[in-house]
């Protein structure tokens, strides 16, 4: 932020030059066969800067609307604008922007044709990467030097609600067709993993729970596949597969998110070498050919978003009772895991985290013969589960923290079972013993 303030008006000039350069360049290429689109052009694009609390567009950025030969800045008058998201009817767009270099990024909305931008958020830090929800709300990421959070806000304005309750670094990516919010979470070591959460903050979990390589900039395409950047390439998660799969992609370094023009035809950011700028190319998987359509001089072209109507995701009907203070967690078989557990499992211990980040024991409960346990945990706090052997030694500890919302009812098949594992149909022994959960509500670790 300080660096941006020092750059001051020089960045403004650079941004204007980028836009002008794009205009000149556009006249020299064939008319694109792609539908109208938005993209972000920026002299400097540092997609991972947010992991360190820095700006992804340290020298400003300009959102450009392209329709045939016509092109113009989507929202003139900003120091920087980026992160486009098009409404389901294709008529409006959300974006992140700031008026001044030293100001905060806010969420804005505008009609794509003849629109006057309207500020949606009023953040006291940077609020970026907004996405439309089907129920008339917007989800976005609030970033700060020490971390980020995902929040939700009515488009018409109102009080933001937090969806993430573990300190860390989050970034919104997409809203899946099933209504879940797809986001990146950088856990220990800074590796980004793709997670999902419902718009009421419930059901947070890793999309595939494989603790795989770094993944970012994900977007779901019409087949249902989720396409993302990983290790300088694109990769995908498919509904039928538990593991990450390859995708056909052009040579060079593509970067997500992709914008799907048609099945097998994507508009994407691509650069030929690791040091060069990103341009926008149309990739056709059937012919294995690319056609570059945006290569602004001295700048990157990234974050393509098609301006077209699309089917809205399903709304999620929340069942939360927000006046409650705890949630119930049932595990069907703690011994079920994709990876070996280092010993016999006889008990479970649940932790929360202190303000300083230190683990704090909430309580301990027995694990039944069939591996089931049932506990009640405080809502909206970091939680982590650890499995213990008869001697009280930890034989498996969750790598990441999770949370539960007030009155959330959550069940896991096992510890690290993966989303591909459906439950075995059997009454958990713990429920035959009692339908009252062991309370682990943080009162000095006392258990019942």
């Amino acid at each position: 932020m300080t660096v941006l303030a020092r750059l001051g008006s020089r960045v403004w000039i650079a941004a204007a030059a980028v836009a002008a350069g794009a205009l000149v360049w556009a006249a020299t290429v064939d008319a694109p066969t792609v539908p109208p689109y938005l993209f972000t052009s920026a002299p400097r694009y540092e997609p991972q800067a947010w992991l360190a609390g820095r700006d992804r567009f340290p020298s400003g950025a300009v959102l450009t609307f392209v329709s045939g030969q016509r092109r113009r800045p989507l929202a003139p008058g900003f120091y920087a604008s980026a992160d486009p998201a098009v409404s389901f009817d294709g008529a409006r767009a959300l974006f992140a922007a700031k008026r001044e270099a030293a100001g905060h990024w806010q969420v804005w909305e505008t009609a794509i044709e003849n629109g006057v931008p309207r500020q949606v958020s009023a953040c006291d830090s940077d609020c970026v990467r907004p996405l439309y929800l089907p129920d008339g709300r917007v989800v976005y990421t609030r970033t700060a030097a020490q971390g980020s959070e995902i929040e939700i806000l009515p488009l018409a304005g109102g009080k933001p609600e937090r969806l993430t309750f573990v300190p860390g670094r989050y970034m919104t990516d997409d809203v899946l067709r099933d209504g879940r919010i797809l986001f990146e979470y950088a856990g220990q070591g800074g590796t980004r993993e793709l997670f999902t959460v419902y718009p009421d903050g419930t059901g947070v979990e890793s999309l595939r729970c494989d603790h795989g390589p770094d993944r970012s900039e994900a977007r779901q395409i019409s087949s249902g596949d989720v396409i993302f950047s990983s290790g300088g390439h694109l990769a995908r998660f498919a509904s039928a597969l538990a593991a990450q799969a390859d995708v056909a992609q052009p040579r060079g370094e593509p970067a997500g998110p992709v914008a799907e023009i048609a099945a097998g035809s994507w508009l994407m950011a691509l650069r030929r070498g690791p040091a060069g700028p990103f341009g926008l190319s149309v990739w056709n998987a059937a012919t294995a050919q690319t056609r570059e359509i945006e290569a602004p001089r001295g700048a990157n072209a990234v974050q393509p978003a098609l301006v077209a109507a699309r089917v809205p995701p399903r709304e999620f009907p929340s069942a939360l009772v927000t006046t409650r203070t705890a949630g119930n967690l049932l595990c069907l078989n703690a011994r079920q895991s994709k990876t070996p557990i280092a010993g016999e499992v006889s008990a479970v211990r649940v932790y929360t985290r202190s303000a300083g980040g230190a683990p704090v024991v909430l309580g301990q409960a027995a694990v039944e013969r069939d591996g089931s346990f049932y506990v009640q945990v405080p809502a909206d706090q970091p939680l982590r589960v650890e499995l213990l052997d008869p001697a009280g030694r930890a034989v498996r500890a969750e790598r990441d923290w999770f949370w539960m919302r007030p009155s959330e009812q959550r069940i896991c098949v096992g510890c690290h079972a993966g989303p591909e594992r459906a439950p075995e149909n059997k009454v958990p022994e713990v429920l035959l013993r009692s339908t009252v959960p062991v309370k682990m509500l943080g009162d000095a670790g006392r258990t019942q």
Partner: protein
Amino acid sequence: MRFGIVAGMVFALLLLGQPVPDVKNRYPSPDDLAVSPDGKRLFVVCSGTDELVAVDPLAKSVAGRVPVGRVPRGVAVSPDGTRLYVTNSWSDTVTEIDAGSLKAIRTLPAGFEPTGIAMDGRRGTLYVANRIGGDVSLIDLESGQDARRLPAGRGASYVSASADGSRVFVTHIYPNPGKWRAEPESEITEVDAEHRIVASRMRLHNVGGVFHLALSRDGRLGIAAQMRPKNLVPLAHVEHGWALGNSIAVFGDDVGGVVQLPLDEIESYFSLPFGVAIAPDKSKAYVSASGTDEVAILDLRRLVAAARSPEAAGLANDLSASAKYVLARIPVGRNPRSIALSPGGGTLYVANRLDDAISIVDTARGVVTGSVSLGGPAALTAERRGERLFYSSKYAWGNQFGCANCHLDSTFDGLQWDLEPDGFGIDIVDNRQLEDIGGTPPYKWNGGNPDLPTECGPRTERYFFRSQGFRGGDLEDLAQYVMSIPLRPNRYRLPNGDLTPAQERGKDVFERTRKKDGTPIPDMLQCFVCHSGPYYTNLQLTDVGTGKPTDRSPKIDVPQLTNVVYSAPYLHDGSARTLEEIWTVFNPNDQHGVSNDLTKDELNDLIEYLKTL
């Protein structure tokens, strides 16, 4: 008494197999189909218009129509192609039809609610699965008699015979009776056709709802469409296959037993697998999903390899397993039911029940190449729109299930579910049947929902679907359909409406106001006080002592008793396996009506009467 007489007369008419008038204004609703041996004709049973429709697949047009009995559900073609046999599920008969002239020749008797049908041409025997009877009729074509009944699974419904006719396999849609809250058990009943006996019962553990099945021509591989309900774990969410596992049972010498394999994916489910066909060259199999409106193409070599693999036993709950053997899913029409291949296997026909049409699939290319309309009204009524919603799985998270996955063919599933959103293991509920419930509010066992829009709207989307459900006009249409679901014919009333002596005695017990020793029975402990009115319910909540410690309230919605005989198990949580257990096990203090002074014979009489309601 008057009610019984009228109902008996109605059923007597039904038994005569007379089509209901005004057929042209009803939707055909194709349910089952079969292809002639020469491939030139497609025979489609239309349960909505009570007819068999002959289709010319080349011309893609209707070639003829034959009125049959009420609500036909199954069709078989004789091996020489000269005869057709149609099951009339509400008439309890089979119509024999001359395939050339399309004239009905004779009506054959069958069991209660005949559904699926197959023919053993060598022995001149029809095998008919009787859904309510839970058995299979062996109908001798020479004598025209229902010559032998073999017990099959509960809700016996679909039949397939091996190509050599030596074995016949039968599936059933309701799990077999078992202990309370035990894993549902189903079976594939194997019949030795030569000796006319049950040769084996292949166990399908944790399965409830088995539909069509098909056998390879060499008889070494069978595939049955099935569901694996997750009714014993609380339905806290839907992702991870939490409600139902849509799958197949693979059996036969090729796999050396029975192996259950999923058709679902992690985020995209293959809801309500229903029809099955196996290619003549055994290269591929096809399964329809009647909830998600598609047909899956399975690679049989890979399928058998998966079924024979060391990890096969663990694949049933692995949502990434289907990638091993599912080649593609093809979108077809609404609510695809039966499917059938042309003799060479080059074309697949799909009966889209709620589109009143047949999809024609080119199996080499795996694409729909055409459609044949079976007629019916062009305009959709609210009931029809609601029926489409009822059978669609496109509202639940991941398209995992719809109303019809648990209310099979608009009835029930015989299962008890842990649906409670606020806590686990409490308020276990038996799935209630939906026939003629329009006049029985409130709904839900605890009476928590005052009307069907509440039951089917916010509650369903919030606690069942976990996704945007039925709203606005859709919800109104759905409620309209549910209210229109008719009572199936009652098989226990005499055709003339009279009661048998046992039923008369049972009626006296039902209506008695004094114990056998003359002591007056308090009003609220007389059967007919709570079970009163046209539906045999006073629409009130009552504590009859059957609540469990895990129920939040002992007060239970007094259930309607119409067709109660079909809907075992009983009580709000399904803990009584039979009507008799209601009094012999669960009424120790006479809180659920005074019954402990009754003898075994008197209870039997009471049950005989209840069967007629």
